[in-house]
């Protein structure tokens, strides 16, 4: 199935958890936050969230600005 990660399509296996996706992406554990379909998923919930087909995942971090 396909999910959208920061605006880009990505194929993942059925049953992939958010934690597994972030692991595959090599996302840092500190300093990032994740929303799935517009809702923030806290770090402690990453392993419990199973991605569904077409899910929109946003991974944000702090950059220079403001």
């Amino acid at each position, binding site marked *: 199935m396909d999910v959208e990660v*920061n*605006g880009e399509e990505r194929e993942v296996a059925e049953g992939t958890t958010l934690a597994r996706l972030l692991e595959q*992406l*090599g*996302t*840092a554990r500190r*300093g*990032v*936050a*994740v*929303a799935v379909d*517009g809702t*923030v998923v*806290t*770090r402690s919930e990453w392993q419990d969230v199973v991605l569904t087909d077409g899910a929109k995942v*946003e*991974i*944000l*971090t*702090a*950059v*220079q*600005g*403001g």
Partner: protein
Amino acid sequence: MTSDDPLVIGGQKLDSRLIIGTGGATNLAVLERALVESGTELTTVAMRRADVDGGSGVLDLLRRLGISLLPNTAGCRSAAEAVLTARLAREALETDWIKLEVHADDRTLLPEPFETLDAAEQLVADGFTVLAYTNDDPVLALRLEEAGCAAVMPLGAPIGTGLGIRNPHNIELITSRANVPIVLDAGIGTASDAALAMELGCDAVLLSTAVTRAEDPERMAAAMRNAVDAGRLARLAGRIPQRFWAQASSPPR
């Protein structure tokens, strides 16, 4: 000399009245020297999509310098976007402080007043310490204070213009009625603008590109630190009233 009370925002004491934004610096080494020279204790960062390989140099830098993070919601156009961005910032950075900014359009980057107030109410209800970027509108400033914002941050001029304080009287109206700290945010071009903000009764100044895009950011950071101190001292000292006619300062013959 009269001692000054520290600035307190949302229960946190800040000895520096200069808040720096990290945007616009050509590289992290330049930014580091400017931040150290400015003496700032609170610095803004923006939230953006993470590179897949991760890592955020600015966070490491600020943590190493012991500077508190003030994430912003820059780039958001609606209350809903700003609230989501604030929640993501809280999760990513483990702070409930947020610089709320909702821009109306890309050309002016002026604050969208209705969305800003709506977002402020939602974020305060959600436990955030909200520092709200706003127009130099004395009525809206009061509304944001009533909504529970920890600080209200009127602009001097649009972001990045360096036009200084376009309506000093409005800024003074805002500071004269406020019960929360007022931070002059945006429009500062040079040191005299920062000093004027403090003379008008602002509690602090927030600026970025005036320093980061100056020819010599480190030196401009020092100028801004001194300007904020000088303006604050002048405010506390109590300036002489302005007069139309001359008044001799030497005794008459």
